[in-house]
């Protein structure tokens, strides 16, 4: 699938086909997409555990529930639990020296083994490790990039996905989650039971509301021709509400015995 189409197709899927498993090769593609994400210091910010819904005991599955995940946990056949690895600075010197060896971090931009070995500990690593806010902030941003790529990969594989909060207190010990893995999102994964449009593309504010040109006072101006091109390429799609959405939701509710 073309990149713009994948981005345009992505939306939170809330109803999955509970009976249709997800192929392991698709899960591998999703994890590899996360593994290829941009990351400072070439560090491993994100950790993930793939869990099959039906392989979790009912007690553990119930322990994940919170008011907004209950239904998805019942419907999605696969969960990916994402965590922020708060020990991401470990091994930084080795990884950076590897990049110097590979001529990726180069002298013309100030990189050398001497800087990595003698300078980076005090100027970078100690500052991150000594500041909880910075440690978590960087961890969240860099993990977020990995999760976003995984999310797009899921749609590229023809799946549906959704990110939710989850309760992790009771699964940490049984699943062997180390203390330094901080809970991030849980990704529900499966084949959509609802139409892939899932009610239409979500309303978004115009670019000029949030993006600026040159300074923060000058809103970015859209070129209508570019906008049309992005529609043609599938990045911008038919917005919600779709005329048949209410009937679709009602039919799904009837099928699963859910409240209207």
């Amino acid at each position: 699938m073309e990149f713009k189409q994948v981005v345009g197709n992505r939306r939170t899927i809330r109803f999955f086909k509970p009976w249709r498993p997800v192929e392991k090769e698709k899960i591998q593609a999703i994890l590899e997409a996360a593994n290829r994400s941009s990351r400072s210091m070439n560090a491993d910010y994100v950790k993930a555990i793939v869990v099959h819904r039906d392989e979790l005991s009912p007690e553990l599955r119930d322990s994940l529930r919170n008011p907004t995940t209950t239904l998805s946990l019942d419907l999605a056949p696969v969960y990916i639990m994402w965590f922020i690895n708060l020990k991401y600075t470990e091994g930084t010197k080795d990884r950076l020296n590897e990049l110097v060896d590979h001529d990726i971090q180069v002298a013309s931009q100030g990189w050398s083994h001497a800087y990595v070995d003698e300078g980076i500990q005090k100027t970078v690593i100690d500052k991150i490790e000594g500041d909880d806010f910075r440690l978590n902030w960087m961890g969240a941003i860099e993990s977020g990039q990995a999760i976003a790529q995984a999310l797009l990969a899921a749609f590229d594989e023809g799946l549906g996905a959704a990110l939710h909060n989850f309760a992790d207190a009771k699964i940490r010990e049984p699943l062997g989650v180390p203390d330094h893995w901080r809970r991030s999102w849980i990704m529900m994964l499966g084949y959509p039971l609802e139409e892939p449009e899932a009610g239409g593309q979500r309303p978004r504010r115009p670019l000029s509301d949030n993006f600026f040109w040159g300074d923060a006072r000058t809103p970015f101006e859209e070129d209508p021709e570019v906008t049309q091109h992005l529609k043609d390429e599938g990045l911008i799609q038919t917005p919600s509400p779709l005329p048949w959405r209410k009937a679709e939701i009602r039919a799904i509710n009837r099928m699963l015995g859910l409240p209207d």
Partner: protein
Amino acid sequence: MNIELIRNDPTVQRWLKSAGLLEEDQREIDGHVEVVGEYCDYAGVTPRELVEKCLRPLNSDDPEQREISLKGRREVNTSIQQWSDGLTGTRFMRAIAGNMVRGFLVHNGILIQGNPVL
């Protein structure tokens, strides 16, 4: 259960209107109202009291300002499950009854999700 009292309760009216049930035929509306009425009989509460059980005051100064009570909602959800599990009929019908009561709560502002029949 006094079906008229249940039907005229403002929380029930709010639910019927918000869920679009008032557009259904009278038998369908009555069926929904009866299910909520039966659960309220089981729990010994009025529909309004059922909603109230899922809420708690936001602060002691202003009892009108309320938020969802996690404990209250959990207890009500468990009670709904126990009630629906004890009903006669197929698993599907029992689940629908429970989810109908949850739907009543949803349309009265209580974020609670249904249990799908799988």
